[in-house]
């Protein structure tokens, strides 16, 4: 059933209104999953600066002038990075909560309330994200 008449680009984009809870959960889960994979690589890139740093002299390390410390400090000084961190937490929390929801669905538990568990995941994600803001933005201004 892969053929379809062409409904035009605008119409295809307008289609989001037609999605229900289960479909939104699916889309968000794919999206957050791939954001996490993307983050994994940047995370590895940043942490990898510790390798050249480990070769630097003790005095440099103690002064915090090594590549690793400098990279982290520079990044954490940027407001954008702080905001992205909040976003990353939101993405991770949603993926974990909805992932747990999906595991329950695989076990055949609570299929009738799959929409409610999706909304619960969303609300919990929102709460946890809001609660994390003070921690992530501390000292950013």
């Amino acid at each position: 059933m892969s053929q379809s008449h062409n409904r035009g680009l605008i119409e295809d984009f307008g289609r989001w209104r037609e999605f229900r809870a289960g479909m939104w959960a699916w889309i968000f889960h794919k999206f957050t999953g791939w954001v996490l994979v993307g983050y994994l690589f940047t995370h590895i890139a940043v942490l990898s600066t510790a390798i050249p740093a480990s070769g630097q002299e003790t005095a440099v390390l103690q002064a915090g002038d090594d590549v690793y410390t400098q990279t982290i400090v520079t990044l954490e000084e940027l407001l954008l990075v702080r905001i992205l961190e909040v976003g990353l937490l939101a993405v991770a929390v949603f993926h974990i909560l909805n992932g747990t929801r999906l595991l329950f669905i695989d076990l055949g538990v609570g299929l009738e309330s799959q929409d409610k568990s999706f909304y619960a995941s969303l609300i919990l994600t929102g709460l946890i994200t809001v609660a994390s803001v003070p921690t992530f933005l501390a000292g950013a201004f």
Partner: protein
Amino acid sequence: MSTQVPQQTDETDAETEPDAAEEPSKGDLRREKKAERAAEREREAEAAENAAAGGNTRELKVFRFDPEIEGKQEPRFDEFHVPFEKGMTVLDALIYARDTYDSSLTFRHSCRQAVCGSDAMFVNGQQRLACKTQLSELSEPVRVEPLPHADVRKDLVVDMEHFYDQMDAVEPFFDADELPEDELAEQRQSRQNREKVKMSTRCIWCGACMSSCNIAAGDNQYLGPAALNKAYRFAMDDREGEARKQERLEIIEQEHGVWRCQTQFSCTEVCPKDIPLTEHIQELKREAVKNNLKFW
């Protein structure tokens, strides 16, 4: 057929009708009823006209496309203003539009009571059975399109061939390992087992679920929710026996079988017969795992 002319029996009215002097005859009664019905129809037609005049109409935007006629090959939407009546379904409105405004408007329908499964359409952005969808529940204009992810033949008619192929692929017929000695003996099912498969037997092959599934849209070989539900109906039937169940599980757990489902629940949302499709697919997944994982 024989060409013989059936013998004409001279039928004299065995039951002589009661004296028609006081009581009206059966024929009279019938005629009276008929007249009543005709009057009723007239009243209805009048009501429809009044409704139209009074502005109580519903606007339909219907997808039109005809590959065979030049000038209609470019898909377009036609607007129809249909007089609204209480209890009117989308199918009623389409029939009215076809019979009143444009006889070339093409769509499938037959039973008009959600039994035959011919009229699954994409109405206001959701796969629905036109004869089971009340106009009063829809916001205007009511947009009627053919099922997405299917090849459109003409107007609202889509090619169902692929859907039927997938249904056939799961061998959708009862096929027990052992037949009773006596060919005509009943093959009884326990009440519990009947309850288990009850919902899955309700499928009317409308194709709404398949159209709503975007895994099926991306993977033409995916059996799809309706076929997997069919497979469930027979795999869970205790009367078929172990050997047949193994064969069924092989079909179910093939590469483009049950594992393609990513629990979007869109099929379950649109199924006009309220079959818990996702639930059945998930149960088949667990059945397949149990079948393959043996720790003893």
